[in-house]
């Protein structure tokens, strides 16, 4: 994309560009020559100031440099603030799912798992000839890669008008394409192919993402039904006491470790939680109903994660917020197809190992623009973009744990909230 600059000058950027081409000099040199005639103490603008403003105009991406403000009426009594405000935006896919690049226009992302079949040793005697044998096996795993396409189209008259005021309409539309692609990437990485068929239903054979893996690929612990020791009275994170929270997370961390033989290279290093649960866990740590503000539940849990990690020579588990895991009614501002609020629709948490060795997706072809062409049939300037995106390939099924929030708030039995049980 060519740079567009606009700054306060008696001539337009395109004039300078055309002049530079005609004289076969650089744009910098052209601007310098044009401004030089003002290098006169009697002139209002000095060359130094003009060049400084010109270079700052090139560097700045947030200023209203593309001339779009010229579409709006204003007079000499109007102060224009040329700092362009943009919408808030956040994507989470690339933050929580490892990605590798390369491959081009392909259809399948395939990987291999190797397992040596270990055996016990057989006793040997002086003349024996019986030996236990080992083996080595390979398993392939695959994930589909789909092409997606986006495009921009500017009617020819609109393009001519934009050129008149040096408004970079192509650039503005390109930004929309870039953000659209980022949202699409979030969908592939987080929920796989959900939504492609027009529904929010996860089909049995549908490729999945990080937050909606099928049972078996992810181990799903439903706080409403799973039995912990000690047994839970409160089955929602929002109402759990600190001992209950530690019983849940300690059990889940330990069971995760059992699945990976407590190998530090596979132990979990991230617990993804919806913002609602993060907020609830910021409540003071307490044994029964309420406690003093010594530390929050989150502080206490974080400390215990650190203790467990040291005990197993494993990495520390980082607790991070992912809005897609909140109950759908609380997840505003995002496409609902990205929501996965667990078995009881009260929120999901994910304990997993963020590591491309364990699970990663492939972007076979990152967003690639085609040529900017004139479409005579539609009388418009067009540019299409294409990308090839794969869904996450989980090499270790069972090594992602979903801990789904319980269904109901349970009465603790302390009606007068005095810390004692109900009589």
């Amino acid at each position: 994309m060519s740079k567009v600059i606009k700054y306060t000058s008696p001539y337009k950027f395109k004039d300078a560009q055309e002049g530079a081409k005609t004289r076969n000099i650089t744009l910098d040199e052209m601007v310098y020559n044009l401004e030089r005639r003002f290098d006169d103490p009697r002139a209002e603008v000095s060359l130094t100031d003009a060049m400084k403003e010109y270079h700052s105009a090139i560097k700045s991406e947030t200023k209203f440099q593309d001339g779009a403000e010229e579409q709006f009426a204003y007079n000499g009594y109007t102060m224009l603030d040329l700092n362009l405000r943009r919408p808030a935006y956040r994507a989470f896919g690339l933050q929580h799912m490892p990605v590798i690049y390369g491959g081009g226009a392909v259809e399948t992302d395939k990987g291999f798992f190797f397992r040596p079949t270990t055996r016990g040793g057989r006793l040997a005697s002086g003349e024996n000839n019986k030996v236990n044998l080992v083996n080595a096996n390979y398993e392939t795993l695959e994930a589909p890669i789909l092409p997606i396409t986006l495009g921009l189209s500017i009617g020819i008259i609109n393009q001519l008008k934009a050129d008149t005021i040096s408004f970079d309409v192509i650039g503005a539309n390109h930004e929309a394409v870039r953000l659209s692609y980022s949202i699409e990437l979030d969908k592939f990485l987080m929920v796989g192919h959900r939504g492609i068929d027009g529904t929010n239903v996860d089909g049995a054979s549908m490729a999945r993402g990080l937050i909606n893996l099928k049972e078996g690929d992810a181990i799903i612990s439903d706080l409403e039904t799973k039995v912990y020791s000690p047994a839970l009275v409160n089955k929602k994170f929002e109402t759990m006491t600190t001992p209950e929270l530690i019983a849940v997370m300690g059990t889940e961390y330990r069971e995760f470790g059992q699945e990976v033989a407590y190998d530090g290279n596979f132990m979990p290093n991230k617990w993804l939680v919806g913002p609602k649960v993060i907020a609830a866990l910021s409540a003071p740590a307490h044994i029964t109903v309420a406690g003093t503000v010594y530390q929050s539940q989150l502080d206490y849990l974080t400390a215990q994660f650190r203790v467990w990690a040291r005990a197993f020579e494993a990495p520390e588990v980082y607790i991070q917020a992912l809005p897609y895991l909140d109950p759908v009614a609380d997840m505003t501002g995002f496409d609902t197809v990205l929501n996965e609020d667990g078995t009881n629709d009260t929120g999901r948490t994910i304990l997993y190992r963020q590591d491309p060795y364990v699970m990663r997706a492939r972007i076979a072809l990152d967003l690639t623009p085609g040529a900017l062409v004139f479409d005579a049939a539609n009388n418009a300037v067009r540019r299409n973009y294409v990308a090839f995106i794969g869904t996450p390939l989980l090499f270790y099924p069972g090594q992602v744990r979903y801990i789904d929030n319980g269904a109901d708030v349970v009465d603790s039995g302390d009606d007068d909230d005095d810390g004692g049980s109900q009589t």
Partner: protein
Amino acid sequence: MARIFEYGNLARTSNKTDLVLPGEFVDAQGVRFAEAGWMTDGNDVEFGEIVEITGRNGKALQIKRVAAATITAARAGFVIRDIVGGRVIQQGVIEGIKGGTHVPVTVIPASSANGWGFAIAVGEAVAAGDQVYVGKGTNGKKLGVAYKTNSSDTVAITGWKFTSASYKPTSSDSLAAFVGKE
């Protein structure tokens, strides 16, 4: 495929021992009598399956899927896991060879004096010491799958016993067990 054994995922740790896939050797003592087998009926053949030997020529054993009317202990053979190319693009573990592919498989005739132990697919829980039977395809006893039950739906593979309890070598519920010559 997956007629006699449904493959799940391989175990993701190596700490658990003896998770041997159907058709793999588990121990060696003395010689083994293993011949190349040529599937003659166009059926798929899976590693760890019990097949029926219909003849032998200068090239190979002629084998086919077990038939209830003709299978006997003398005609039975065990299919050993070989290295073959997966004929269908799929994910998972290679299960055997597709019917009609021109690939010989390794077969150990049940009648041979064989000193090597190996794993096979079983259709029910078995214990070490149980007699090996093959299903005849009736009343839930699948053709080519090993059982411990003596009934009109199975045929005894005389001279062969299970040498281990049954186990699940992959994440599916399908079972395998070691067998050896008595």
